[in-house]
């Protein structure tokens, strides 16, 4: 079966996100003060697998081996509905 998957890569708690900080400042300058702003990266992939679980396991491997850097990132994989 073809399984569509969404992968979210974000920074671990406590890791400085200078881009998010710059965006937050820019939003404040436009009159949109925000209490918190963080950013994340989304990947939409489709893999061929026997089950959804197998597809998610593949996506997890992709994160471990390339998409995320374990020093600074956390990741979440889910079937895209």
């Amino acid at each position: 079966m073809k399984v569509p998957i969404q992968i979210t890569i974000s920074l671990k708690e406590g890791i400085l996100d200078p881009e998010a900080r710059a965006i937050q400042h820019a939003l404040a300058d436009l009159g949109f003060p925000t209490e918190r702003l963080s950013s994340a990266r989304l990947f939409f992939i489709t893999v061929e697998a026997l089950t959804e679980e197998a597809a998610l396991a593949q996506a997890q491997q992709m994160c471990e081996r390339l998409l995320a850097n374990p020093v600074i990132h956390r990741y979440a994989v889910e079937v895209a509905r």
Partner: protein
Amino acid sequence: MRFAVIQFGGSNCDLDTHHALQDVCGVDTDLVWYKEGLGRTYDAIIIPGGFSYGDYLRAGAIAARTSIMEEVLAHVRAGRLLLGICNGAQIGAESRLVSGTFTINSYPKFICRWSCIRVENANTPFTLSYKEGQVIRIPIAHKEGRYVASSSTLKELNNNHQIAFRFCNREGISTPEVNFNGSMEHITGVLNKHNTVLLMMPHPERASEKVLGSDDGRGIFESMIAHVEKG
């Protein structure tokens, strides 16, 4: 004795590094295109600066997963020297050759300027021509050079003397003003446990001849040569 400089698509300090090694320091040095593979053993490998794969995903992430890096890992496992400069350091960190990683500068823009760094450990194959605490002047040029590691990793690096260089001022004092990329503990050069891998953001090849404004960086190449000569 023979050194290699690996060229990836997007490497742009490859020829400068080759010049510094071959012409300035006089060590036979091959330029190796990453798709060709190493083809022989080398005493030292240098991964130069640049923008391999356009810094897509994260600087160094994609180059780190190319097949030549498996040969580089085998070279390191055999106890031979690897120096990663700037993008080469990012590639090395993405290959987990040292602990921690280099990520986007705390002020998120490209910085290109002179910096002073302090030699924290002069007892390594890369730093033996310096004295501990010596301040050297070497340029930096990067957007993703902020060194980040967990507190337990930092503790381990400090305990094992795996920190090669820290940003400092001309007097050798580390202050936030001279920590241009916001690296943790001002760190900008990290060693592996065996001191056979050095990953550094500053560019020693750009400070290897007086005509460039400083030849302070040449000592890194000379140290490597002296280390290999010693056997």
